[in-house]
């Protein structure tokens, strides 16, 4: 079988065997496609669910074992899993803040299709949590967790705790379902405050390369806005000359209200 051949399998014929997500990785959250088999030697990396079938890249058993062997895929034993439309694997890594609370959310949501699975991180005392979820059901949780992370980041930033703000922001960034200007703006600001200017500048480049100049400007504008909220004394001169202190306070309040509304939703 030539690599890259796309195939369809009926969901009812499929058995879950693993996923492409590596157990290691720096981001606190990751999502990836699952791998299924038809029991007749064909393995499929599921890219899409169409009606009652799955579509994806086909591979042989040997190819699948090769991926597992060199750490590109993980063969996690979820017992008696019945694949449902939209099943993906979520990794909540050891550095995921508020993980227990997130897992409670997952358990209550009806999105879990098997109990979560703890997966030890090699050569460390940590473990990642892997969960098979129905994406369309679980996706709102991801947004909720993102908003919670950004709200935490704001609170840390308000108190000048930029290391914690960065960690929370990175979590919000990992949870975002796509590059979004607001999250990226706050992340860039937190890198600036940590003195990681190269990364801050780098992410502005990423914004432009990925989504064009207008998106970069949008990110920059969010970054400036966040900046005025947290460091008015410096940013009123360096970012937006003449912005009164009362303005950033009002703006901060509005921002917090935005976040709270998003969390409540």
């Amino acid at each position, binding site marked *: 079988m*030539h*690599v*890259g*051949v796309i195939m369809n399998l009926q969901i009812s014929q499929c058995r879950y065997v693993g996923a*492409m997500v*590596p*157990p*290691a*990785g*720096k*981001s606190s*959250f*990751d*999502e990836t496609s699952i791998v299924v088999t038809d029991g007749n030697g064909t393995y499929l990396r599921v890219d899409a669910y169409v009606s009652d079938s799955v579509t994806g*890249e086909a591979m042989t058993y040997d190819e699948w074992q090769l*991926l597992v062997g*060199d*750490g*590109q895929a993980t063969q996690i034993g979820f017992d008696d899993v019945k694949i449902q439309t939209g099943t993906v694997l979520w990794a909540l890594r050891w550095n995921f803040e508020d993980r227990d609370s997130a897992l409670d959310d997952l358990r209550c949501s009806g999105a879990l299709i098997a109990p979560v699975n703890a997966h030890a991180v*090699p050569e460390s005392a940590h473990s990642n949590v892997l969960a098979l979820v129905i994406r369309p059901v679980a996706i709102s949780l991801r947004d909720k967790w993102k908003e919670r992370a950004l709200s935490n980041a704001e609170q840390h930033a308000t108190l000048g705790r930029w290391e914690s703000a960065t960690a929370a922001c*990175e979590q919000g*960034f*990992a949870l*975002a379902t*796509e*590059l979004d200007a607001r999250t990226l703006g706050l992340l860039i600001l937190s890198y600036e405050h940590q003195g*990681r200017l*190269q*990364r801050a*500048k*780098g*992410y502005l*480049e*990423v914004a432009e*390369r*990925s989504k064009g100049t207008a998106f970069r400007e949008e990110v920059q504008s969010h970054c400036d806005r966040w900046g005025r909220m947290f460091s008015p004394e410096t940013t009123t001169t360096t970012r937006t000359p003449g912005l009164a202190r009362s303005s950033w306070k009002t703006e901060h309040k509005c921002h917090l209200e935005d976040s709270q509304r998003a969390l409540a939703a």
Partner: protein
Amino acid sequence: MPPRKLTELLGELQNVIASTTERQDCYAAGQAMSSRIAACLPLVRRLKVGGVASPWQASVQSRALEPKSLCTVLEERAGIDASVYFFLGCAAYPRGDVAIVLHSRTAQSVASSFWPFDTGSLGSHLQSTNGSALDSDAQDEAFRKYWGSGADVSQFAEVFLAAHFAVPIQYVRCGQTGSPDFPAYHGLMSRDNDRRAWTVEVQAHEVVSLAKESGHLKTIIVQRHQLLDELPDDLSEFGKVANDVAAGVREEIEQLCM
């Protein structure tokens, strides 16, 4: 055994172009655009994402692409000790959540070779145009006959693109499966119409630095933004997020060439 001279390789290609009037006319019409495109075609290495010790994470942490010494039999017979593999101007390897894109000049500045097909497919998916499989001798012959020096790859591509495509940018735009407008001049084709039968492969035989100051690195395309976390601070500016890595590479090249 050294690679063949550019003049020899181009001579054979020109003979095929001259074989029909239609191909000759098409070549003449596309030459100018082909030159412009060939000059900026980057080297693309698509990688799979894995654990901490995976090639992609190791490459960005060490800021280097290390040639592997586990060569194919064909490479061993030709005296090639180690290689790191690229395709010219597209992400022809169909798997991987990451693509490392290097400026075209990299092939001139490191010891490298090229072939107008995927050498890894010689023993498996490539066959002659009459449908017969390639035996060991035929594989060896193709490997040696079409082996060029990496320093010449841009000049070769100038002619190669116009010799195969009415609109040379189609070389970049073609998806994983598809054929050029004219049959590949080397007489090889893929059993499943995979583009690797006619896409130019480049092998670097020494370490390729990804450090910013080396000037080789153009972009690191990642399939999901979470993977940006793996980039060290000094490489973060090279990141680009594209849900479809191959399409992201195409877009990058079109911006560069058109």
